[in-house]
């Protein structure tokens, strides 16, 4: 079929209607020592120590920033255990025995309205740094670095598009906590002294549009507006969203802040609201568990550090356990597949998707061009694949595979079921070689 892929069929319509269930905090909580951006970490507590909820118990060291580690429950530190991290690696996790009290650390204090209005951009930056606020849409890029930009910001875009199929956690969050999200936006607008913020949502979600048009009437004159964008995939990609919302095409590799635009995910904004209002790090997050491999797909509000196995049990367990499953953290298009279900919810896990595994038989490429038509970065995936097969480094470099965002559309739309995205990933490695 020679066709540009725009819409990916999914089960969102049903899952988006289900309310978020507040999951119980398990008796043991696991907190990752390192993550994809920070490999090393120091620990400030030792075995048997009592920790409070939201207490800083360590420090992760990344390439260009440090990130404090917060305990997400109160209880006793009982050692380390190895589990799978979101990135697909086996990582040391700090194990904390939950005492069920949730004693808050002394650092958590609510700020009054006057205090918040007095905060400068530097103050907000420091608060976010201390609270380890990161991009919760999945990028886990530290938010405070985004705030440190020296460019004048004219527009703040709030990314509520959530274009991947099967995921509805942002959708539910936007429906259930709209006041908090708008508060987070106001904090950011004050910090950047910018008077234009746009909440981007898919135009097909009438419920979201209704809630926000109604609510934003209370904040008239502040410059917050709702911006319905397209329903296609990958509308949630930063550059694609900016193009739809503002009509500006930014070449890949350039920072949007250079054009006076900055964008945040809705859950990040919700996190920033908590960080600034209560000086509290993100200890809870919304996730969706879905896919055709679980009995009852649901939305959960869970404590960071909960093992995913307990959540799957709450969903009624696996459907048809004799069929092999693919276990995905993140969306089915870009998420990482894990070799085991023994993994832990971290701050940046948006969803857990369990699919019945289906293997596809590769046919020879017939150059139908669907991948070329579908590619949002205007690349030629089939050419890149042929160049990789021929190990033609010059041609690979000329085809510029580093523009690829690995959205997965080339594989998704391949008539011959070839894993084109894998070839492009290999081309990216080639292109980085000197």
């Amino acid at each position: 079929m020679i066709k540009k892929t725009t819409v990916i069929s999914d089960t969102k319509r049903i899952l988006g209607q289900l309310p978020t269930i507040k999951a119980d905090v398990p008796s043991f909580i696991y907190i990752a020592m390192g993550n994809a951006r920070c490999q090393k970490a120091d620990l400030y507590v030792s075995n048997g120590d009592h920790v409070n909820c939201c207490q800083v118990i360590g420090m992760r060291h990344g390439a260009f920033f440090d990130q404090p580690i917060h305990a997400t429950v109160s209880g006793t530190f009982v050692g380390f255990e190895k589990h799978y991290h979101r990135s697909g690696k086996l990582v040391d996790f700090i194990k904390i025995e939950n005492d069920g009290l949730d004693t808050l650390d002394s650092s958590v204090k609510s700020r009054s309205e006057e205090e918040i209005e007095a905060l400068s951009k530097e103050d907000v930056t420091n608060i976010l740094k201390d609270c380890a606020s990161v991009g919760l849409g999945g990028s886990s890029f530290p938010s405070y670095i985004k705030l440190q930009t020296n460019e004048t910001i004219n527009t703040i875009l709030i990314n509520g598009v959530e274009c991947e199929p099967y995921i509805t956690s942002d959708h539910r969050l936007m429906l259930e906590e709209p006041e908090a999200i708008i508060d987070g936006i106001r904090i950011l607008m004050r910090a950047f002294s910018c008077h234009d913020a746009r909440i981007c949502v898919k135009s097909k979600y009438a419920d979201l549009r209704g809630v926000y048009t109604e609510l934003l009437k209370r904040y008239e004159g502040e410059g917050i507006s709702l911006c319905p964008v397209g329903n296609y995939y990958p509308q949630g990609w930063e550059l694609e969203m900016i193009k739809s919302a503002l009509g500006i095409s930014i070449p890949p590799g350039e920072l949007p802040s250079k054009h006076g635009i900055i964008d945040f995910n809705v859950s990040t904004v919700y996190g920033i609201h908590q960080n600034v209002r209560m000086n509290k790090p993100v200890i809870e997050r919304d996730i969706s568990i879905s896919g055709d491999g679980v009995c009852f797909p649901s939305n959960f509000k869970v404590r960071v550090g909960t093992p995913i196995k307990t959540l799957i049990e709450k969903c009624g367990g696996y459907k048809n356990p004799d069929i092999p499953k693919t276990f995905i953290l993140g969306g089915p298009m870009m998420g990482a597949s894990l070799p085991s279900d023994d993994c832990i919810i971290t701050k940046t896990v948006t969803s857990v998707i369990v699919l019945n595994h289906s293997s596809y038989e590769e046919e020879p490429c017939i150059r139908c061009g669907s991948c070329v038509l579908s590619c949002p970065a205007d690349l030629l995936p089939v050419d890149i694949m042929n160049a990789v097969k021929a190990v033609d480094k010059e041609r690979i470099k000329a085809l510029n595979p580093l523009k690829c965002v690995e959205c997965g559309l080339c594989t998704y739309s391949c008539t011959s079921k070839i894993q084109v995205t894998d070839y492009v990933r290999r081309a990216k490695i080639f292109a980085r070689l000197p």
Partner: protein
Amino acid sequence: MEIVKETSPHIRRKDSLVRMMMDVIIALLPCIVFSFVLYPLEALKIYGISIPTMILSEFIYVLIKNKKPIDYINKTTFKEKFLFAVKKYRLSNFLVPLVSALIFSLIMPASASWYAIFVGALVGIILGKLVFGGTGSNIVNPAALGMVFSKLCFGSSYSYSKTPFFDVAASGTPLGSISTSISNINDYSLFDLFFGMVPGTIGETCKIAIICGGLFLLIRRAADWRIVVSYLLTFTVLMLGAALSVNSLNPSVGVFQFLGVNFFSGGMLFACFFMMTDPVTAPITSPGRFLYGALGASLTVIIRIFGALPEGAGFAVLLVNLVTPLIDYHKWSKEKFTLKNILPTLCIPAVCLVIVVLGVLYGGVIHA
């Protein structure tokens, strides 16, 4: 419960090569039915020779290509080797040569000898496809190559005879009579041309069947509309230029009559819908596909008006197939439409239009 690790993305579009090939076969059905109605015995002979030839060649190719890895400890018997290779034979290995064979058969004349058909089919599949590495690797359309080879070698023995279905005074194809003199267009009525009641190859004369099949292909997205649209547009524009020049020299030739006869005669529509749109031999980018269609149509018109042979579509398909790697050259081909991309698509037909008009006016193609 088993958990399988794989790389993203984890879901796929509902689509397959088999579906695409089945679509082409379904789209060819009206033409096939028409060929049986018109030439029952000859059609049976042509299909009976070309289909087994192409499918068997592909089967032998699969056997040769898939060698069992050498086992140094146990000696592999011939049977094991054979079964290993046979297991690699898939449904697509059957359907792809079937499509080639059907298209090849439909563009052969009923009078072709069994030997001409056999050699054409063999050359088409082997030299046109298998030597390059089978499905997806060919640079020319196997059906077009087979037809052109057979026509060049055995063409003098072809004759386009009458059948009980139509009885016409003139002998030879409509394009054949145009070829003797370009203004010779009134031998056949447009109605006969449209419904295929004229001599010609067994499958490409009935335009209504071709258009139905072609529309089906476009609706099912098994063919790219960009190629079809640009081909038909360019063809119409160039033929309009030719018609106006012919009309200025010989006012008895009506512009629209000339245009209609050229549009509905020969293998132009068939080549446009079923041969140009073969994705393997077409460029991969959208601007490239527009250029490809325009080039194909320009060549068709030029060969038709100035060529020694009456029909140009098959040759044009072969020639533009050879240009595809040039269009796809990685430093030039971009998916985005830019002025640089669009310019050749506009310039080449414009240059061809000038050639056609000047050629008709001063080239001496019109014999009184």
